[in-house]
């Protein structure tokens, strides 16, 4: 009886939508006329777009780029920050607060802020990297990203005196995402404080260096949490929507480089009213996400160390 609100919610908000979207993915449906069964046509269309620079193909490769870079990067930066922030040092809580604070900033406000920070003309980011000798980047005005075959060409042209424009809009989005890594850091910090000091003492007696202690004590002890954050980070990254929408004003521009699956799906459904096509896209995304998650679970056996219950 106590669970009845949730059961009702499950039926209305999950079970029925789940079945309906699976059925509609096999239909032509524009919200006004009743759905018309068309078999696998939507899926055929999605498949035909893979590998091309339009529709689902473009959205898929943009999403892959964003997730494959931002998720591991967030994990690496998060672990390193947590280790640094766990040293017993004066003002520790102040440093922790400053690193955590960006993650509570509302996405829309953060996106507005970064639109300005990443401005090629007057943005602070270009100003700061110029101190390091890196020329100003076009960030949100460039569709190409840093990890792409064309970057090799840009580098060779740079030696011939061409401007070095490596980073693009997706890299900007990744930068903004990593800035909000604070809540992952909190999880790592909690896990770090659970590591028994005896392990470090034992390692010290064995003469282990700081680096060895990090690789052979800290990382294995953190591995369950790292695994958890990898899975959650992956799920979260493919669902990123508000920041993409605000940064590109709902267009996925420049050059469609911010057209991720979530935005493409939203526009296909509510701008083009192709509900069938959008539903099919959602299902492909869901299956891909399931496959990636179960792959992570598979590999986790080899690197995740669960502590035996004490």
């Amino acid at each position, binding site marked *: 009886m106590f669970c009845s609100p949730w059961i009702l919610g499950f039926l209305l908000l999950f079970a029925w*939508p789940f079945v309906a979207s699976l059925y509609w993915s096999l239909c032509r449906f524009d919200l006004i006329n009743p759905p018309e069964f068309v078999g696998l046509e939507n899926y055929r269309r999605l498949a035909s777009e893979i590998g091309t620079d339009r529709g689902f193909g473009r959205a898929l490769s943009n999403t892959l780029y964003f997730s494959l870079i931002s998720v591991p990067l967030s994990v690496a930066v998060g672990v390193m920050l947590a280790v640094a922030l766990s040293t017993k040092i004066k003002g520790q809580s102040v440093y922790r607060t400053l690193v955590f604070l960006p993650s509570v900033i509302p996405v829309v406000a953060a996106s507005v802020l970064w639109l300005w920070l990443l401005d090629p003309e007057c943005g602070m980011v270009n100003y700061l990297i110029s101190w390091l000798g890196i020329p100003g980047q076009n960030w949100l005005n460039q569709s190409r990203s840093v990890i792409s075959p064309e970057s090799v060409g840009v580098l060779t042209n740079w030696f011939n005196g061409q401007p070095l424009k490596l980073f693009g809009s997706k890299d900007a989005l990744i930068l903004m995402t990593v800035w909000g890594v604070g809540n992952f850091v909190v999880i790592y910090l909690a896990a770090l404080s659970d590591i028994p000091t005896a392990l470090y003492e034992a390692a010290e007696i064995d003469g282990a260096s700081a680096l060895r202690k990090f690789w052979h004590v800290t990382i294995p002890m953190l591995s369950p949490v790292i695994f958890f954050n990898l899975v959650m980070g992956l799920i979260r990254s493919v669902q990123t929507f508000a920041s993409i929408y605000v940064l590109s004003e709902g267009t996925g521009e420049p050059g469609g480089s911010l057209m991720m699956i979530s935005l493409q799906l939203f526009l296909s459904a509510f701008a083009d009213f192709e509900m069938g096509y959008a539903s099919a896209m959602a299902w492909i995304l869901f299956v891909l996400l399931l496959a990636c998650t179960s792959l992570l679970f598979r590999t986790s056996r080899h690197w995740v160390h669960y502590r035996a219950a004490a």
Partner: protein
Amino acid sequence: MKTSSRPLTYFLLWLVSAIFSLPLILMLSGSLKSSEQLTRDPYRIWPEQWNWSNYLAALESMPFLSYLANTMVLCVGCVMGTTLSCAVVAYGLSRVQWRGQKWIFSLVVGTMLLPWHVTMIPRFVLISQLGLYNSFWAIIGPTLLGDAFFIFLLRQFFLTIPEQLFEAGRIDGLSHWGLFWKILLPLSRPALATVALFQFVQTWNDFGGPLLYLNDPKKFPLAYGLERFVSSYGDQTHLLLAAAVLFTLPIVVLFFLAQRTFIQGISTTGIKG
């Protein structure tokens, strides 16, 4: 760490914190600069003069107070809806024994893994069919039916309450509802506060919901209103930043007031997950 690496650790921590907080400092300082200084000299942190009038101008260039009122209605509605519904469901999943309980609990956890993409279109159709399109109920309604993440969080907390207390309540003749209201809820204030806080922040920040379900500008909440503001005042950076600060400030204040709740909420759900 050995003592020799101390200054280095200090320096690195200082540098990292500076990098993480710089955008926020710039947002604050930019919101106080004159439009002219912002273009001529965008990198100096200290404003030449403190233009508090930017805030007034930002308030006037969009219906800020109306957006704020809408956000507050949504926040209050969603917080009440979630706390109540999730507490009831979590009670049923932790303190009442019945067949199929384990099964339902794994379904609850399972829904957390389902991306919103799959359910978005049918939910939209359902909400329109119910005549809730362009109504706050489109956003508040679903919170009355529970949220997997919060149910999970509350259930974990409820399980830590000693069974003897419930035993004693039963001897005193309390029904299930009596146990729920008189024993469980008073003991669960910290967990309920975490849920309320997280739901508040989530609703305050929510952009997708209003984008999907609201189309009357009179009903826009702040998050959506601010985005509309970007499209129409994109070149007025000083006003944009002032509006962003006004939108962010309550959340930052809330964070400082309830820092402990925030941090504990994140770390417990993270680890228990």
